[in-house]
């Protein structure tokens, strides 16, 4: 992080010309009482809290589906559910975890932290902020309702490839509408982030003085605005193919099903970075605090993030090598994909260099950040293996791919969210959580996540296909180990929910700086814990 933050004057000093205007605009009113506070919320902290709680709810619903999947795969043969329902579980688990758990959690963190970190009183567009949140419960209620319609929930995979997805029954239009709503919500959230960062920064906070979390979110927001409309376009075309006689993707009418895959993955690969760039920002905030050193190579971190975002637009076809493409295309997408390891390597190097010779302590946020560093790197390495065309022909649609993206998304994205919650929860609630329980949560999660996902590399390399409810007996042992890891990981997360909810209700009073032993940087630590209802009524001055 830029050293500029150490000079931040805080909310009690550094009056600027427009400070008085903020006073007038907000009129010092507090939150509304009862349900109106939440339904009509326009305060960035309230909306952030709504997003985070919604995300946690979806995390447990999606997690319950994962438990069904792992229970069915506990041993060979069909034991608990019929194959169609199993396919619905894999499809719904992915949709709920990606669009309902991970993305809303990051938007919730953005809502909470961006105004605090840039020294703004609120997000730039608070009413749109309310709308973009409240769309989500409707979208996911509709998506979950598909479990109860004739024909069951969508079962063709979260990628919605035609022609399979076009064969879905009643659930199809509900899925398409839900995806449109999620997309609209994400686009509005992203516009709000861009507009806030570009227009609401405190005086003196130039772009290269912004905290890394704000930088990574700015780049993520541009990615969202660029690719969510692509997904919306793809599913609109699916809808017209199904109901209005078009043939965008129907071979019988002269359409091309492979075109859907190109369009989908033009959205889908940047989507992966949408779920990981804010994680990079979080880790870049936490590691310096608990290493008691400034972040190594701040500028390089910003440029690396921007490079990853750019490269994410030119690698999409590595998801579909096996559908066939010209050799030049294979070479291009393989090499472009491998190129991503350069800026990612810069980041991993810089985090390690930040810790080097630091006075490190291992509070729960730091534990999760270090775990992220190791385990995300494993996911990165398996991604490099998958980038190689001839190897991908072997690994495609096997459990190796499942292991790869779960390493990126669980100990990657989700661990970073947990790290962020443990880092900022005392700031949000004004209460310190039980460190011993949080440390238990960390160790249980880290051990079980590896028991859950590491054996899936072996299963994939041995040839076990993904998205199947039954398998050959040769895969029995590692599947059982993986399922045990899954149940352990799932149960461990109940501890997380308990820690978060109990800290919201009560706990030892947290100080304003929260991490007094560490070196937390940034404007958020100049405010009280919890911060006042309107964050910076007087804009702080950043030198």
């Amino acid at each position: 992080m830029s050293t500029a933050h150490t000079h931040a004057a805080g909310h009690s000093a550094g009056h600027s010309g427009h400070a008085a205007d903020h006073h007038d605009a907000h009129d010092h009113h507090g939150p509304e009482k009862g349900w109106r506070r939440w339904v009509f919320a326009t305060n960035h902290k309230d909306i952030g809290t709504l997003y985070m709680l919604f995300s946690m709810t979806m995390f447990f619903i999606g997690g319950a589906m994962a438990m069904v999947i792992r229970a069915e795969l506990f041993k060979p043969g069909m034991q608990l559910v019929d194959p169609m329902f199993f396919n619905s579980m894999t499809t719904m688990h992915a949709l709920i975890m990606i669009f309902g758990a991970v993305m809303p959690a990051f938007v919730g963190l953005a809502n909470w932290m961006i105004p605090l970190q840039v020294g703004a009183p609120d997000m730039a567009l608070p009413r749109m902020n309310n709308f973009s949140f409240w769309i989500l419960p409707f979208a996911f209620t509709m998506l979950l309702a598909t479990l109860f319609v004739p024909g069951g929930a969508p079962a063709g995979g979260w990628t919605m490839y035609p022609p399979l997805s076009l064969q879905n029954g009643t659930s199809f239009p509900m899925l398409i509408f839900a995806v449109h709503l999620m997309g609209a919500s994400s686009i509005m959230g992203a516009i709000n982030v861009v507009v806030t960062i570009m227009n609401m920064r405190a005086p003196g906070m130039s772009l290269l003085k912004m905290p890394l979390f704000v930088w990574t979110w700015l780049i993520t927001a541009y990615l969202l605005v660029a690719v969510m409309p692509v997904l919306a376009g793809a599913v609109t075309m699916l809808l017209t193919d199904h109901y209005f006689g078009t043939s965008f993707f129907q071979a019988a009418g002269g359409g091309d099903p492979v075109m859907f895959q190109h369009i989908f993955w033009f959205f889908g690969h940047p989507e992966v970075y949408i779920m990981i760039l804010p994680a990079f920002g979080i880790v870049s905030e936490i590691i310096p605090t608990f290493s008691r050193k400034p972040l190594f190579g701040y500028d390089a971190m910003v440029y690396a993030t921007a490079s990853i975002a750019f490269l994410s637009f030119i690698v999409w076809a590595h998801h579909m090598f096996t559908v066939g493409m010209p050799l030049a295309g294979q070479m291009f997408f393989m090499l472009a994909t491998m190129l991503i390891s350069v800026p990612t390597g810069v980041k991993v190097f810089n985090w390690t260099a930040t810790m080097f010779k630091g006075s490190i302590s291992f509070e729960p946020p730091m534990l999760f950040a270090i775990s992220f560093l190791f385990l995300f790197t494993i996911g990165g390495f398996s991604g490099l293996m998958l980038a190689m065309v001839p190897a991908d022909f072997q690994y495609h649609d096997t459990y190796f791919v499942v292991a790869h993206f779960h390493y990126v998304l669980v100990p990657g994205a989700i661990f970073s969210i947990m790290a962020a919650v443990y880092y900022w929860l005392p700031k949000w609630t004004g209460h310190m959580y039980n460190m011993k329980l949080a440390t238990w949560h960390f160790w249980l999660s880290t051990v079980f996540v590896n028991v859950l996902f590491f054996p899936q590399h072996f299963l994939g390399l041995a040839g076990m296909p993904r998205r199947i409810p039954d398998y050959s007996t040769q895969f029995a042992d590692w599947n059982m180990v993986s399922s045990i890891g899954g149940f352990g990981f799932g149960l461990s997360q109940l501890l997380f929910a308990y820690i978060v909810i109990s800290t919201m209700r009560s706990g030892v009073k947290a100080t304003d700086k929260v991490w007094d032993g560490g070196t937390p940087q940034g404007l958020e630590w100049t405010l009280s814990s919890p911060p006042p209802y309107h964050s910076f009524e007087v804009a702080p001055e950043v030198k």
Partner: protein
Amino acid sequence: MTQNDRKRGIRRSAIWMSLLAFAIYAGFILMAVLRSG
């Protein structure tokens, strides 16, 4: 920067971002229409 400048900036960047999102949505569908022809 005055409060009015800031409001104008907010309005301007929100409109441009919305137009960009809509243009990408319409552009991709148009591209698919042209390719299907």
